[in-house]
């Protein structure tokens, strides 16, 4: 039977964000009469199972998230660096076509990002060098391009 929104009317709207939830947050969402019918041992067992199922995100050294809005569509970019605590490789159910598309998109993004960062570093280093009056080569940079 499909779930109706009215079936969740007892869910607390002020509940904590997904990654911060504890087993007790879920136990407290059980209908009060059903909750009252459970003994302490059953509740502890529920809590044990829920604890295993809850996400335990690793602490991130770098956690950079920002969005790019192209008016017609929006993208988000996430860059995370942290210790890998996963014991088994994560399985992604993808088709070969999707995998090829992902690789192409990842390469294009990485190359673009690399070029942007390299250009930013080069231009800022060149301007700082010039502002300090350091001349490594005779002439100006633009004379090379003209």
């Amino acid at each position, binding site marked *: 039977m499909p779930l109706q929104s009215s079936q969740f009317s007892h869910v607390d709207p002020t509940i904590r964000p997904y990654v911060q939830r504890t087993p007790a947050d879920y136990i407290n969402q059980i209908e009060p009469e059903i909750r009252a019918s459970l003994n302490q041992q059953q509740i502890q067992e529920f809590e044990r199972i829920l604890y295993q199922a809850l996400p335990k995100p690793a602490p991130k050294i770098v956690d950079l998230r*920002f*969005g*790019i*809005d*192209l*008016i017609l569509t*929006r993208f988000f*970019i996430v860059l995370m660096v942290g210790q890998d605590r996963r014991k088994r490789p994560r399985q992604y159910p993808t088709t070969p076509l999707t995998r090829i598309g992902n690789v192409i998109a990842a390469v294009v993004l990485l190359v673009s990002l690399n070029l*942007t960062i390299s*250009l*930013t570093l080069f*231009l*800022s280093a*060149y*301007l*700082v*060098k*010039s*502002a*300090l*009056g350091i001349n490594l080569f005779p002439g*100006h*940079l*633009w*004379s090379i*391009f*003209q």
Partner: protein
Amino acid sequence: MPVLFLFCTVSGWWMAALAIWPLWLGTVGITLYLVVVGSGAIALSNGWVMFLIATAIFKGHYPAFWPPDQPYQYWATLLLTLWGVGVVVVFLLGLQSQSLKQLPHRKRQVRRLNLLLLTWAGLCLGYLAYRLNLLT
């Protein structure tokens, strides 16, 4: 708002002085994009600022009123400062526009239009100040 207006005027004046004419249209478009989209436009708009600075460096745009024997350091310091000003303008405009998203539709549209007019007025004022030989 006054800081944004001032920085837009400074940017407009120096863009006119450095004679980066074909990029004016792009700059006007980027300000429109920032006002419409908000903080989601900051990343790409910073790319545009970098493109402007890169154009000035690689094509050797130099203020016409500076004497030929002007030390090269001044030009580099000027471009570094303009880069900083450009980044500040992008962030101010993007974040200001983002804060307007909390407002009701009608009020938001009016405030957005005001923000856009303020930005364009700053750029135009800077351009006119240069063309009328003010501050040179």
